[in-house]
């Protein structure tokens, strides 16, 4: 950590002086550049695949999947990444996909890794559920503080840009391409899943994770599981999970459901046995879940998110 901040400082100094020539190697290593490559996953649909990690100074917060969909009006961009710099890199990386540019942006939910690239697209419609728009407005600044703390220079210039258009209908039509809108909840209190009618591709947002541990800072596990049931019923031809590789077999929905069931059960058992959070942090994690990206950190974060409420629910009231 200390090394990186010193390196960043060196880079900052170098860029503002002619000293660059004296440390070419250090400067190159310190350049923070997102390497974004669109991968074609269906007819007219690409995804940019994020690292299945937590935010680090190495990955610059590029841990999220973004989806690009071609329409006759231009591209639809679903989720925009963690920073202004990512938004710029995203715009550049997708320029070759359509001569028409970007027609619209959609945010699946209000977590910072999914909408902090919006700044680049603030002249065009940025759609989201109304509740997501409100949450992005009220919680955006606090997210921003934490993102600057975690990612440092990667965040430079990033300003919170909430979605500017609410989706109230059950379908959305952009440039003759039709999308079905699923307003769901569970990962947060407002999660949007989108089905491309043409290809049957489901963009699931963070309701679905694949081989990357699901995150729970605003989760309601019971509602999340219900939403996953609804998404299974969609029977999509392919799924873009919020984090993890493109899913052609529905594994992301099954794996996320299985993980949430285990997580809930594990924490309930710990509460029922009177364990403190520090003791619950040391719970054993089944191999299949331990193999997921960002483990055991996400389990540990989940203990912090979910344990206090479970205790209030499970421990009996004892007043005289």
């Amino acid at each position, binding site marked *: 950590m200390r090394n990186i901040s010193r390196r960043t400082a060196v880079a900052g100094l170098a860029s503002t002086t002619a000293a660059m020539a004296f440390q070419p190697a250090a400067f190159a290593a310190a350049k923070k550049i997102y390497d974004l490559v669109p991968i074609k996953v269906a007819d007219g649909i690409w995804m940019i695949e994020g690292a299945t990690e937590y935010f680090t100074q190495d990955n610059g917060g590029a841990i999220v999947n973004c989806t690009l969909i071609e329409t006759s009006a231009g591209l639809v961009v679903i989720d925009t990444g963690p920073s202004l710099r990512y938004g710029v890199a995203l715009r550049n990386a997708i320029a070759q996909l359509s001569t028409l540019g970007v027609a619209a942006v959609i945010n699946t939910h209000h977590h910072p890794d999914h909408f902090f690239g919006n700044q680049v697209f603030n002249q065009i419609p940025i759609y989201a559920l109304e509740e997501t728009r409100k949450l992005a407005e009220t919680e955006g600044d606090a997210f921003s503080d934490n993102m600057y703390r975690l990612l440092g220079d990667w965040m430079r210039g990033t300003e919170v840009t909430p979605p500017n258009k609410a989706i109230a209908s059950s379908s959305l039509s952009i440039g003759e391409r039709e999308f079905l809108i699923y307003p769901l909840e569970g990962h947060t209190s407002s999660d949007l899943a989108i089905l491309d009618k043409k290809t049957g591709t489901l963009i699931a947002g963070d309701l679905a994770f694949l081989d990357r541990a699901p995150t729970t800072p605003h989760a309601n596990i019971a509602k999340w599981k219900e939403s996953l049931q609804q998404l299974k019923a969609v029977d999509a031809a392919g799924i873009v999970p919020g984090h993890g590789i493109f899913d052609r077999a529905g594994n992301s929905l099954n794996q996320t459901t299985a993980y949430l069931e285990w997580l809930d059960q594990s924490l309930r058992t710990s509460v029922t046995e009177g364990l403190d959070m*520090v003791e619950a942090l040391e719970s054993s994690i089944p191999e299949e879940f331990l193999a997921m990206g960002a483990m055991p950190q996400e389990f540990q974060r989940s203990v*912090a998110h979910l344990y206090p409420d479970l205790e209030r629910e499970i421990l009996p009231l004892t007043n005289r």
Partner: protein
Amino acid sequence: MQKLIIGIAASLFSTIALAGDDTRVVLDDPLKTGIFSYHQKLILGDPARIRFDDRVVVKAPASAEDSLNVPVLVDATAIPNVKRIVMFVDYGPIPKILTFYPEKADAKLSFRFKIDQATPVRAAVETRDGAWHVGHTIIDAAGGGCTAPALAYASDDWEEELGKVHASIWPDRGRVRMVVDHPMDTGLAGDIPVFIIENLQLDDSSGTKLARIELHEPVNEDPAFTLYFAKGKLKDQIRIHGRDNNGNEIDAIARAPVTQ
């Protein structure tokens, strides 16, 4: 008003600076935070016998995911005859978190607290002969935990919840877990005065004191504790009682879960 506060703060600071300059025992702080000697003098009363001791184990997550609810477990059971355990942070507007008097309990306690910035958390353990043993862990944090208003005020019915005790005991495993509903206002959030539980005590059914905790402002909203006992020491029920600084009484009887 602000000038007055700055004045008070400045005079307090100079007092601290004088106070910290000369501890009776000069310790070589392994963390070299530069402030430990002040706490040694002002929180622990400048004891004549004090040392850092690996037998005092403090466990917490390396990073605070929720700055309002940082879990800590202190375990000094490797040290015999513990009289009290004082928990405090090096860096924070109110350093002292709590004092635990184990009495009949093990010298081990789990609790949660509000963290205001990245800081070492220290456990100073006093034995009955007056000697102090100090352990620590370090917690990274985004901060702000002490200066945010209690979440309870987001709901209208917080007064009805005040002092409610969610608790169970596990006699066969020597364990008490309790969560007491209380805002635990630090006085540092705008226009909200200090409002905290000051004292919680556990008694057995014959009225014998089992353990006691003195709480300070940094203890989390809805304080949550696990206390540990030797097997057989807990019977079928215990009494949990205490009061806050506004005189509200807390009184509960915790029992073993029915399933046991």
